[in-house]
């Protein structure tokens, strides 16, 4: 089923036993972040957390870890909560083929109920803001769907971008904003700043669960996130017109913040504990002036803890990174079977592929590095045979241990591009990248002694089903 807002999804999580209400009073710091951090340390099916009794606040409602387990990710896609991760990725890829699904415009958005404008804007009065990690420079909005348009083509719906970026609250009506150069909003900002113009922006908080997934998804520049949300939801995405910017924003948002990125201005930002498991910051970043805030009555503030993996961020951007890479690789190389890009948003990727001829797997690895996402990520690629499941790490380790002759199968390419947050880059933004070819060589690559592999016995599949049945019948 498709959820039109965060609240209806929280209801489902609660019915499915995947939302935990913390009713005891907690401190805003360090309790909220420490609890969300702890969800990543209690196993794979951790619940979302909901807090409404926070010291010093009278009216705070805070949702954390909404996507932070495979059960919650499955429910976000309308799948049974126990759907295995590989099946979730395959279903995601299947639904992708319905792209584009036109959105549905509804102008009765519930966030129209309340408004702050101009000098009355005070983000602290609308949002129960809090710190996530010790070294963070302040309080962040890190799970927003941020909408911007191409200043040279403002009427192009596809080029209108919806993305997730880190946003530091640096005043009642001021935000510091991080556009990574590889991301679409950085292109919008560059075009506006070349003309000396401010870039209008809409920041939407507390969205339906598929909106959060598409906002963090590496899509082509002219592909609409709303049309992808429609494909993944199996129903048109509901959108509404933001009153100040006129941008298309989610109908169901809890809060819509509108303003401009002030042209040609930079101010000190961060640090912020990032999805790489390291802080980044101490740099001068663009600044947003907030001119209008629209919000639902009793808004729910949704936030995301991130730090040393795994955290909610890894569940949120795991499958949505695998599928675009799979689709882009398969477009030219139908031999590609599956892509596991779930490690640090695809800084490391495992690809299973059949081989057209000797050397083919290495070509697939190089192509992964030159996809749009690969330009900023894919610093390490492991290639495995078509019968190795890239989501099954013991199988991948077997392939690496048995198939790799390091001298010829490990290729390191110097001085390639990577996002500046990558901790191992030197200098920031530049790294070497590595291909580990753990596939079985095929002609004319005749290296190694692979002619007699010990495959599963022909009868094993039948016995697998039989054993599973016998084990299930015992209970």
């Amino acid at each position, binding site marked *: 089923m498709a959820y039109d807002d965060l609240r209806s999804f929280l209801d489902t999580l609660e019915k499915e036993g995947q939302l935990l209400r913390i009713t005891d009073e907690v*401190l805003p710091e360090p309790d909220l972040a420490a609890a969300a951090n702890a969800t990543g340390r209690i196993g794979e099916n951790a619940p979302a957390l909901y807090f409404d009794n926070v010291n010093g606040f009278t009216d705070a409602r805070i949702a954390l870890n909404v996507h932070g387990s495979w059960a919650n990710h499955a429910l976000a896609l309308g799948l049974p909560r126990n759907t295995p991760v590989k099946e979730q990725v395959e279903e995601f890829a299947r639904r992708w083929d319905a792209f584009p699904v036109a959105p549905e415009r509804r102008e009765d958005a519930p966030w129209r109920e309340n408004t702050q404008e101009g000098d009355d804007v005070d983000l602290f009065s609308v949002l129960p803001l809090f710190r996530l990690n010790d070294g963070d*420079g302040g309080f962040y909005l890190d799970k927003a769907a941020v909408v911007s348009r191409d200043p040279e083509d403002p009427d192009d719906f596809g080029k209108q971008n919806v993305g997730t970026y880190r946003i530091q609250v640096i005043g009642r009506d001021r935000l510091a904003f991080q556009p990574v150069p590889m991301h679409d909003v950085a292109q919008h*900002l560059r075009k506006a700043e070349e003309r000396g113009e401010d870039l209008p922006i809409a920041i939407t908080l507390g969205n339906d669960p598929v909106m959060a997934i598409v906002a963090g998804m590496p899509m082509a520049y002219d592909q609409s996130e709303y049309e992808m949300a429609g494909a993944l939801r199996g129903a048109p995405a509901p959108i509404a017109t933001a009153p100040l910017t006129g941008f298309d924003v989610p109908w169901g948002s809890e809060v819509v913040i509108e303003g401009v990125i002030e042209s040609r201005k930079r101010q000190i930002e961060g640090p912020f504990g990032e999805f790489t498991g390291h802080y980044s910051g101490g740099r001068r970043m663009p600044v947003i002036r907030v001119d209008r805030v629209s919000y639902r009555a009793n808004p729910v503030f949704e936030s995301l803890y991130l730090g040393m993996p795994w955290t909610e961020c890894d569940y949120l951007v795991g499958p949505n990174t695998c599928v675009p890479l799979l689709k882009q690789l398969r477009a030219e190389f139908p031999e590609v079977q599956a892509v596991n890009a779930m490690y640090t948003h695809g800084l490391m990727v495992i690809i299973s592929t059949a081989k057209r001829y000797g050397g083919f797997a290495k070509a697939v690895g190089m192509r992964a590095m030159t996809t749009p996402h690969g330009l900023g990520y894919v610093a390490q690629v492991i290639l495995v045979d078509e019968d190795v499941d890239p989501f099954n790490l013991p199988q991948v380790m077997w392939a690496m241990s048995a198939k790799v002759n390091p001298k010829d199968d490990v290729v390191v390419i110097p001085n390639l591009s990577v996002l500046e947050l990558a901790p191992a880059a030197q200098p920031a933004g530049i790294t070497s990248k590595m291909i580990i070819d753990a596939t079985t060589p095929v002609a004319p690559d005749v290296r190694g002694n692979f002619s007699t592999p010990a495959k599963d016995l022909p009868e094993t599949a039948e016995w697998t089903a039989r054993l599973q049945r016998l084990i299930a019948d015992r209970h």
Partner: protein
Amino acid sequence: MNDEHLECPRCAFDTITQLASSPVPGVWDVLQCARCLYTWRTIEPARRTRRDTYPEAFKLTEADIENAIEVPAVPPLIGRS
């Protein structure tokens, strides 16, 4: 406000502004350094609110702030580059 700590825990600057105060009166304030923009709630642990216990790795100097690189760099104005 805790007057005895009116110094930025991170960069030791002494101009501190108040961004917010608790909806329940008198429980906490949110303060901000006017120079490095470090923002903290007065009831946070000492490792985040006191200069003498703030982690060395996250301290900033005036030079750090002045020399911080711009990301992304401001592009040349079209026609003037």
